[in-house]
């Protein structure tokens, strides 16, 4: 349970709290820091999804999922060449 895994965090673009203005990355970071002091964003995404990827424990992922504006916290998948 303490082991960190990569998650892709989908956020609701239109639910950004007014305090963040239009600074979505700041909102992403603030949401992340509220569940994990040590977690860092791997990527932020604005076009393909609205959100970011990060390393979290299962517990942190569950906590993040409950925050306002979070649509989904999905574990990373591994793909293979065909």
């Amino acid at each position, binding site marked *: 349970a303490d082991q960190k*895994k*990569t998650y*892709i965090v*989908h956020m*609701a*673009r*239109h639910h950004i709290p007014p305090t963040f203005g239009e600074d979505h990355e700041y909102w992403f970071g603030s949401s992340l820091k509220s569940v994990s002091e040590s977690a860092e964003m*791997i*990527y932020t*995404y*604005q*076009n*393909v*999804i*609205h959100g970011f*990827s990060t*390393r979290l424990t299962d517990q942190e992922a569950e906590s993040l999922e409950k925050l306002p504006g979070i*649509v*989904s916290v*999905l574990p*990373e*998948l*591994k*793909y*293979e*060449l*065909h």
Partner: protein
Amino acid sequence: TTRTPEFLGLEQKGSMFPQSTGESDVIIGILDTGVWPESKSFDDTGMGPVPAAWNGACETGTNFSAASCNRKLIGARFFAKGYEATLGPIDESKENRSPRDDDGHGTHTSTTTGGSVVSGANLLGYATGSARGMAPRARVAVYKVCWLGGCFSSDILAAMERAITDNVNVLSLSLGGGTADYYRDSVAIGAFSATEKGILVSCSAGNAGPTSYSLSNVSPWITTVGAGTLDRDFPAYVSLGNGKNYSGVSLYRGPTLPDTLLPIVYAGNASNSTSGALCMPGTLIPEKVKGKLVLCDRGVNARVQKGSVVKTAGGAGMVLTNTAANGEELVADAHLLPATTVGQKAGDEIRKYVISDSAPTAAILFEGTKLGIQPSPVVASFSSRGPNSITPEILKPDIIAPGVNILAGWSGAVGPTGLPDDPRRVEFNIISGTSMSCPHVSGLAALLKAAHQDWSPAAIRSALMTTSYTAYKNGNIIEDLATGKPSTPFDHGAGHVDPVSAVDPGLVYDLTADDYFDFLCALNYTAAQMQVVTKRNTSCDAAKTYSIGDLNYPSFAVVVPSDSTGKSGGSTVVKHTRTLTNVGPASSTYKVSTFSDNKSVQMSVVPDTLTFGEVNEKKSYTVTFTVGPMAVGSNVFGRIEWSDGKHVVRSPVAVSW
């Protein structure tokens, strides 16, 4: 690639494509293992300036600089942060932390889709010819997302993000990740955004065939590509001491075997391992194989590794036999020692002889490259098959294209077998997979985009699908190599791609992102699931009736409900509506024909005639499927065709109980 341009009719006189002027404005993005920029297939001689819309870059990294790109290879990026977050820093003694391809797969796919013309291409003398990508004047941008340890979805999403902002027109992904629902599948999610922005996304169907329900990349906004054979083979016969001969295939080039027959031993009898027949590393007893041919069973480890294992143990050569899992499919390999691959039936006969004869002998005779092999194409056994496990009402794969024994560019970092102990370096390699068929379709989509710049991704896919063919010139249906029988739409989708016809399809089934949104509503997605895939803040309309069957898809998959409410006289009635857009002559009249391979499925189409008065005019029709009772698990196939006498707009039909 060599041969596929001829096989696809692209070299025909009068083909529209050679005169297409917009091709150099089309940019194909490839997510793969990177690129070997020194490949002659990236020669940019005669290419004009990079399109003004291009926002991409040539990223620097280990053994890769901005100078690695040119007017053909206009972009190269790498995405490793997700990979490194999981597996630690990339070991730069083993792979380049840059867009450089250490594997070969990415160079193969990118040159297949958009490589320049290279004369005299070959692999060790095999498949010689003029090699070219399907869209030889299109621009290529490579996004490296796959590393030694795999391809991670956080990197794939990041690459798709950049490809969208870089302004690619086509995205080609020869990778997959099983059968996650769309809202869990990063490729599907990324492809939705790309499609919404007018980018056609072509993906490989997977190599998990011939098992049913084995497809990857099945979302309706993705073009899903299965694999077929060419009319080319690389025969290498096995001649046994009992006088019998069996055909096999090989790409071996090197010191030949003696002219005399050599002793042959079954690997299972030359090993202390219970799985010795597989020729796994360290399992063969050198004293029992030295100087002999070794018969190995296919499976578990790589085919070329088995040859390496035999060579290391002192064997003189190898006969590799398919098992039930592969049937009669013959995939050629550039083995490190004289070796050939035979089908299951031949392998069983050879095994019987080798085990039962007191002093069995054999020889391998290499015949080089043969063209004109018939029948072709044949659906590859490995090509993944429908039904679609996520949404059975969407028929997948969409189409098949050449994917067996394809020659294309290769990395200079690795030999043709990909084995660490292969010291050979080649400019081109021959490999197989739906990874190879996907970039064929990506390149052809680029040609269509160039010829019809206003067409949507769905229109391009529709043109490719409705003009594809399902029968040989003699009228027989395209065979399935797995069974030797006629293939079905679950194997070949709409059929084998025919780009010359696709450029002038007459009518297309168009789709927008809004239609895909409605499709997700029909799946009863939750608001969160909808938002993950579409990023939209809007929800499904509670007052609206959504139907998966009404997605304006160029094919029909009817799933007969077990508790059908539309019963009429013991039959089930299912209605699907479609809309056709006229992209042919302004004034045209199309009449419909329907075909079903079983009386249990009756189709009626209303109206049965569509008259168009102008270009881009849309007309709708409804198909009523009247379906009789059949056993659960039964399938009936058919087709619906619209024709004006010149164009035939063909849709496959699959009905499943």
